């Protein structure tokens, strides 16, 4: 209860510099006058200390894993090892251009090749590509491969459907649509895929079934082998969304479970920083039958040399400018090398233990809609709060005041007022207990206090409806709306918010 986020009345960066005389953009020899920018870029000229202080103050109004527990379900917010940050900034990693001759980038190629092999072992696939930039990008790339595969078999015209459970991440149906498929949701039974419903939905129109296992209810799909059999019997492919791989590292893998394609999120399981929403890296694994469709180039080893191979006639081509997000690949490589076989198993064991420990405790206070044994995350329902006139959203905001990030809320959609909680292996028992106690305190708090939360953050509850109804999306909009929005400053402040 001692948390208090910094609350700077920091102006926008363009308010930090006094207006300056407009200076014409220089003419460049050989460039016709018509191209020359008539109005110079309106952006402030500031000294470096002013800029650094501005963004340092902004950082102090931002919550990160290093600040406190971050129990976001399906996001795997684990500690980001500091050594990876140091290594990714070495000149040999950062100051490498992707168009350098292969002889000068043997280290990058070898690291990529090695990481692909390690991830191949972890996922059970013979080939892995690091090209996709994020999980959703990996899904999309996979679905283009699925399409190419069925085109080669003369079935593309017919196989136009992608099936997914109602617990699927939103990216799954969105990726399927972008790739030109029609999506169909399979209802869940007790939080898992209803095998009978899946069987009934599978047909010769099905291209692919997309599945997350453990799923977003935190449950392991124990009928996975039967699911794989049913999907394959229908001539369709099985796709693994690797968002929740953390729970099963070394225990099982998509290859063994019968999946044909998988993406992994290096920014989840392999601890590369989320960066306030990105960058990520969406590794893609494929069976032997689907590997020929992977994007080019592929990194290959010839004798002791490594090179980029573009000779893949069945490849779908490219999905990104360069090969992949190497800066993140390197961090993931360091993470895997450090953990090794036993360390990876330990991650699964400990993340599952953490989830079950906190689930057991909080299950005494809020309903748990599904069976008790969960994997790395669990779901609670905030429905009982409604009797007191508060919602899951209020509980989430109240946690922010404790110096703890809120869990994922209102997802999965099949649970009313859902809270989805994940506490990765890097969280100590002390952190787990503090989190559980904070939720309990919030549940015991008054509805008025819950609805007023947060009060200890840089700002109070934000009017999101107004943001969407009258969108002000840039400095330009702010100038246009000047007058409509009260300027920051003492006269616009209706008083000090209540102390936390």
């Amino acid at each position, binding site marked *: 209860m001692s948390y208090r986020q910094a609350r700077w009345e920091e102006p926008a960066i363009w308010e930090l510099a006094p207006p300056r005389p407009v200076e014409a953009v220089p003419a460049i020899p050989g460039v016709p006058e018509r191209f020359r920018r008539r109005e110079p870029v309106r952006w*402030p000229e500031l000294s*470096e200390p002013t800029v650094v202080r501005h963004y340092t103050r902004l950082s102090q109004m931002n919550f990160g894993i290093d600040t406190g527990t971050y129990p976001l379900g399906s996001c795997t917010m684990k500690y980001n090892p500091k050594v990876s940050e140091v290594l990714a900034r070495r000149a040999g990693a950062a100051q490498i*251009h992707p168009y350098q001759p292969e002889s000068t980038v043997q280290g990058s190629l070898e690291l990529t090749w090695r990481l692909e092999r390690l991830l191949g*072992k972890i996922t059970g696939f013979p080939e892995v590509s690091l090209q996709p930039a994020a999980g959703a990008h990996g899904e999309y790339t996979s679905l283009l491969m699925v399409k190419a595969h069925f085109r080669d078999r003369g079935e593309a015209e017919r196989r136009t459907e992608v099936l997914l459970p109602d617990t699927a991440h939103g990216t799954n149906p969105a990726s399927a649509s972008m790739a030109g498929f029609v999506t169909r949701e399979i209802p869940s039974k007790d939080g898992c895929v209803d095998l009978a419903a899946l069987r009934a939905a599978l047909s010769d129109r099905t291209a692919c079934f997309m599945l997350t296992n453990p799923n977003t209810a935190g449950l392991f799909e124990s009928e996975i082998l039967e699911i794989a059999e049913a999907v394959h019997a229908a001539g369709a492919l099985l796709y693994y969304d690797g968002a929740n791989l953390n729970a099963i590292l070394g225990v099982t893998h998509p290859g063994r479970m019968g999946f044909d394609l998988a993406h992994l999120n290096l920014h989840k399981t392999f601890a590369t920083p989320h*960066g306030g929403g990105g960058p990520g890296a969406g590794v893609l694994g494929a069976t032997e039958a689907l590997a020929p469709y992977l994007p080019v180039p592929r990194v290959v080893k010839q004798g002791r040399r490594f090179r980029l191979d573009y000779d893949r006639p069945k490849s779908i081509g490219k999905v990104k400018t360069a090969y992949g997000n190497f800066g993140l690949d390197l961090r993931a490589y360091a993470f*895997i090398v450090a953990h090794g076989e036993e360390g990876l198993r330990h991650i699964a064991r400990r993340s599952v233990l953490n989830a079950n420990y906190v689930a057991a405790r909080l299950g005494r206070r809020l309903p748990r809609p599904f069976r008790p044994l969960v994997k790395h995350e669990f779901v609670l329902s905030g429905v009982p709060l409604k009797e007191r006139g508060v919602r899951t959203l209020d509980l989430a905001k109240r946690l922010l005041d404790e110096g703890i990030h809120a869990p994922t809320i209102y997802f999965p959609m099949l649970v009313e007022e859902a809270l989805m909680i994940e506490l990765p292996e890097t969280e100590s028992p002390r952190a787990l207990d503090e989190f559980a106690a904070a939720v309990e305190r919030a549940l015991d708090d008054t509805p008025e206090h819950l609805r007023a939360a947060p009060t200890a953050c840089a700002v109070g509850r934000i009017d999101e409806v107004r943001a969407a109804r009258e969108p002000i999306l*840039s400095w330009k909009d702010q100038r246009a709306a000047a007058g409509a929005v009260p300027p920051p400053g003492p006269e616009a402040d209706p*008083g000090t918010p209540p102390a936390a």
Partner: protein
Amino acid sequence: MPGSGRRVRATALVRWISDEAGEEAGLLRALGLTSADELFRDVPKKARLGRLGVGASREEPEVVAEVDRLLDRNRPLGRFASFLGGRISARYAPAAVDAIVSRSEFYTSYTPYQAEASQGMLRALFEFQSLWVELSGVDVANASLYDGATAAGEALLFCRRLHEGRRFLVPASLPWEEKSVLANYASGPGLVVEEIPYDARTGRLDLEFVRAAVAAKDVFGLLADVPNGFGVLDEGIFELKGILGEVPFVVAADPLALTVLEPPGSYGADVVVGEGQGFGIAPSFGGPLLGLFACRKEHVRQAPGRIVGASVDAYGRPAFTLTLQTREQHIRRSRATSNICTNESLMALAFVVYASVVGPRGLARLQTSLAEKARTLATALGPLGGLQAPRFESPYLGEFTLELARGDCAGFLERLRRRRVLGGHPLADPRPGAARSPERLLVAPSPWVGEKEIARYAAAAKAWSATGGGA
């Protein structure tokens, strides 16, 4: 060396996993379990694994040694005079940029869905959006996409939401990687990417081709790039909107070029995309990069990706939040405008910090000086036999196309590399099935290149030319 012995701890092998004083046993006891194996009884036996075969765990110094061993096999840009460019550039970023990006409140945070606890990132992203709006000259920017190529892909799909049709026009001079990415984005909905031929002498778009295509009524969008894939500044770009009429017009622009060139919004662009890596982001063998996207305000509800908006909090104070989220995958699912979730927020932060530290005058100076270097080199190479520099008779900025009349880009580049010069990158599609194209290089002097390095390039090229290189 410390820690080089394979020390196996009694409990946690890796100190990043929480396990002080055997705490796992306590957690198991609290659950009434005797072994952690019981937690996995829901995984069928037939799906269980033996060993993965990924090796034993290692202590931090060993990990450092292993990664450094690999990185030592690389030769970083600093060892060469670099003329590598294209969409990815090597430029100096003031140390202050990395100092801010390294603030762990920023880099260890998640997507700012809990806006009250994430004002820092939201405000930085709002400033980033404002900067791209200013540079591009259109109304609304999103909070980033993966890279320039995928931003172009998203622009293609965006145009299709605004306009009927099946064909999307792009310059034939567009880098092959981008054409390939665009073809993939088009393939989902069964759309076609069609190449606009260029004038062989000037490298400029064939506007008659565009006119005819638009008249056929089946074009739903057109993308043109500034500078184009040959480094050419094509004056035809000012006429495109007039030809396109209501057909959406996408400009892919280099943000540094926009500090000295007219903003695409001023000549009718409906969408402006770009690669933002050159602003404070290390090339890192090609990633992470930064996709820039901006569009007109009336189309914002069709835009892909996250957008930060201004609002107020419960006390009336200015506050920022992700907004217009009903466009996005986590709400709209199969009907979302895009599947993108994770984007490149931290890179967007680097972009706006870089621009703020260097300042608009500094940026314009940098672009001016790079243009001067490119001119000096092209002038030095011009008279040499067997090569044509610049290949196209058109204005250019910091990069130009060099054509080797007798071919053999690889031999030319290798000759230069031996003199510690990275002479450019081949423009041809390297896939064996690709159509044969002339042997061309895109040459882009880096900021570190001075008169001496330009002279070295010219001398090596001269020697290559004199010995009948490529013949």
